[in-house]
C-alpha cells in the first residue's frame, strides 16, 4: 500500500506523473471528477528545483470536490456548480500546499455531500474499490476509493454525519473525523455548520496523524476553529475501552459483528481493558440528526440562487429565476433535505421538531460525557453492514439514512471519531470499527489505531 514515506526519495515530477497515470488507469471507478494536472506538474517541478519544501514535499493527494481549489472546477458533484471555478482556496488546502503537498485532482461525492453512497453525485456513482458492483459509501466515496486503489497516500474528505468514516469502512482505509473545530472550514462548501468537519483518509495512522497535524489550528476566517491542540502521540498506557451494546445487536450484519468481536479480542491481547457499555439514547440519534442537519442545510443552501455564481436558469422574473435555478441545480436528495429543513423550522412545527431535537442533543452529549468519564474510547462497528450494492437503497431514502446510524451520534456531540480497518467478510468486503473519544483526544485515537496496525502486522 502507498504511504507518504514512499515519496521521500526520487523526483516529485516522477511521483506526480505516476499518480496521475494510476488515476487514469482507474477511471472506471468514477472516483475522480477532475484532474488538476497542469498546476500539479508545475508544483512538482518547483519541488524538484528546491523552491518548495516541507513535510509533504512532492506528495500527491486528492481533495473531495467540495474543497475550493485554484485551477479547475469545484463542483460539489452538483449541476449547480458544474462549471464553478473558485476565486480562493480552502485553508486546509493552503496549509497542505505550504508543506509541499500536491493536489492532483478532485474526488467524487454525493451532491453537496448529501448522502451515504456517492450515488447522489450529479456525475454518476463511485464504485467500491473492492467490488465494482457495490457502493463506495459516502459522501466522501471518491476520497476513500482513491486511497484504497493506491492512487495517492491520502485524500481529504468532509464528515457531517459519517461521510469520512463510513466510506473508509467500506473501502478498507483509515478515516478521521476530528473534534468539531479542529480544522478550518473556510473554503469548503457548507452543509450543516454545527457538525461539518474536515478530515483525512489514508492507509496508515502515521500518515493520517501527520496530515491532521498540518491542517489543524485556529483560522481567523472560521470563528469556530479551536486553538491548535493536535499533537501526534504514542500510546504509553493501556486504555479503558467500552464496546457499545446498542451497536452490536441482531440488526447489525453478523459478519460485521464477528469482525468487531475479533478486533476487540486483539485489543485485549494488546493489554487494553475492554468492557461492554450501554448508551440507550443512541437509539434516538438518527432522528435528532435528520431534524438538525436538514434545518442547517435549508439555510446554508439558500445561497445557491443563480444570482452571484453557479448555473442560472432562463427566467422572465426573479422568483422564477430562483425557483428554476434551484430545481435544476439540486438533485432529489438536496431537495428532500432542504424541504425537511424548511418544515422543521417553519412556524407551528419549530418547537415540536427543531427545538425538541436540540434538547435531545443535550441529552445525547450528557450521556457521552458520562460514559467518557469511565472509558477512554467508545468502540462500535463504523457501519451496520459492509458496502451495499449499487442501487440497493436509492429508492428508499430512510433505508439509506440508516447506513449512518453508527456515525451520526459523535457528529451531533462534536466528538472525534475514526474508522480503522478491522477485517474483511467472506466475500472480501472490508469492515471498519469506529473509535470515539473525548473532545481533543483525536491524537489518542490515532495512537491506538497505530498500535493495532503494528499488532496486526
Amino acid at each position, binding site marked *: 500500500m502507498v504511504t507518504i514515506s514512499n515519496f521521500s526519495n526520487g523526483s516529485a515530477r516522477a511521483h506526480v506523473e505516476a499518480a496521475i497515470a494510476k488515476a487514469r488507469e482507474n477511471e472506471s471507478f468514477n472516483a475522480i471528477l477532475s484532474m488538476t494536472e497542469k498546476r500539479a506538474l508545475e508544483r512538482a517541478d518547483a519541488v524538484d528545483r528546491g523552491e518548495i519544501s516541507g513535510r509533504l514535499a512532492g506528495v500527491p493527494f486528492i481533495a473531495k470536490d467540495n474543497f475550493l481549489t485554484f485551477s479547475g472546477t469545484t463542483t460539489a458533484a452538483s449541476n449547480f456548480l458544474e462549471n464553478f471555478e473558485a476565486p480562493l482556496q480552502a485553508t486546509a488546502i493552503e496549509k497542505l500546499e505550504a508543506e509541499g503537498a500536491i493536489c492532483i485532482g478532485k474526488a467524487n461525492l454525493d451532491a453537496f455531500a448529501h448522502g451515504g453512497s456517492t450515488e447522489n453525485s450529479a456525475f454518476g456513482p463511485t464504485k467500491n474499490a473492492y467490488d465494482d458492483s457495490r457502493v463506495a459509501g459516502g459522501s466522501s466515496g471518491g476520497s476513500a476509493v482513491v486511497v484504497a486503489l493506491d492512487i495517492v497516500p491520502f485524500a481529504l474528505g468532509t464528515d457531517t454525519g459519517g461521510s469520512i468514516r463510513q466510506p473508509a469502512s467500506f473501502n478498507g482505509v483509515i478515516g478521521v473525523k476530528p473534534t468539531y473545530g479542529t480544522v478550518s472550514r473556510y473554503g469548503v462548501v457548507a452543509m450543516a455548520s454545527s457538525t461539518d468537519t474536515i478530515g483525512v483518509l489514508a492507509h496508515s495512522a502515521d500518515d493520517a496523524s501527520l496530515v491532521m497535524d498540518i491542517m489543524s489550528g485556529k483560522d481567523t476566517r472560521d470563528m469556530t476553529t479551536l486553538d491548535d491542540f493536535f499533537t501526534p502521540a504514542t500510546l504509553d498506557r493501556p486504555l479503558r475501552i467500552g464496546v457499545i451494546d446498542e451497536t452490536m445487536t441482531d440488526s447489525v450484519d453478523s459478519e460485521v459483528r464477528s469482525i468487531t468481536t475479533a478486533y476487540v479480542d486483539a485489543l485485549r491481547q494488546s493489554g487494553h481493558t475492554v468492557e461492554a457499555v450501554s448508551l440507550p439514547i443512541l437509539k434516538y440519534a438518527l432522528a435528532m440528526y435528520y431534524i438538525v442537519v436538514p434545518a442547517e442545510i435549508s439555510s446554508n443552501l439558500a445561497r445557491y440562487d443563480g*444570482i452571484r455564481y453557479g448555473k442560472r436558469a432562463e427566467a422572465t422574473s426573479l422568483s422564477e429565476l430562483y425557483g428554476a435555478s434551484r430545481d435544476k441545480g439540486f438533485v432529489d436528495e438536496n431537495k428532500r433535505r432542504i424541504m425537511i429543513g424548511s*418544515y422543521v423550522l*417553519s412556524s407551528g412545527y419549530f418547537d415540536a421538531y427543531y427545538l425538541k431535537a436540540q434538547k435531545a442533543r443535550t441529552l445525547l452529549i450528557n450521556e457521552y460525557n458520562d460514559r467518557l468519564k469511565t472509558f477512554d474510547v467508545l468502540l462500535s462497528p463504523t457501519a451496520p453492514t459492509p458496502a451495499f450494492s449499487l442501487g440497493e437503497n436509492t429508492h428508499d431514502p430512510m433505508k439509506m439514512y440508516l447506513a449512518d446510524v453508527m456515525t451520526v451520534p459523535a457528529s451531533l456531540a462534536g466528538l472525534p471519531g475514526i474508522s480503522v480497518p478491522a477485517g474483511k467478510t467472506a466475500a472480501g468486503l472490508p469492515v471498519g470499527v469506529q473509535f470515539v473519544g473525548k473532545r481533543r483526544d483525536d491524537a489518542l485515537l490515532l495512537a491506538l489505531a497505530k498500535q493495532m496496525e503494528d499488532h496486526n502486522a
Partner: protein
Amino acid sequence: MTQISHDDVQHLARLSNLQLADGEEAALRGDIETILDYVQQLSELDTDGVEPTYQVTDRENVWRNDEVDNYGINTDDLLALAPEAINQQIKVPKVL
C-alpha cells in the same frame, strides 16, 4: 402516520424557493412523510427542563477587530463568477 398534503408540499417548495417540475411532487411527498414519521420517535424522550444545544464549540462570542479584510479576493474576480454582470453590478431579471 404524518400526512402531507399537496398544498403542504407546494408551501414547503415555496419556503425553499424550489419550483418543482411536473411529477416531482408525488415522490417528494412520500419521502417527506416517511422521514417525518421516523423522526417523530423523539417525542418518546422526556426533555422537560433540558437546555437545547445549538453548537458544540463550548465558546461564546468570538470577537475580531473591526478591520476590512477582502480575504485576498477582488471585486472583479467575484463579478466574473456571476452569470451576468454589467457596470460592476450583477444583472437579474425585472423584480417588479
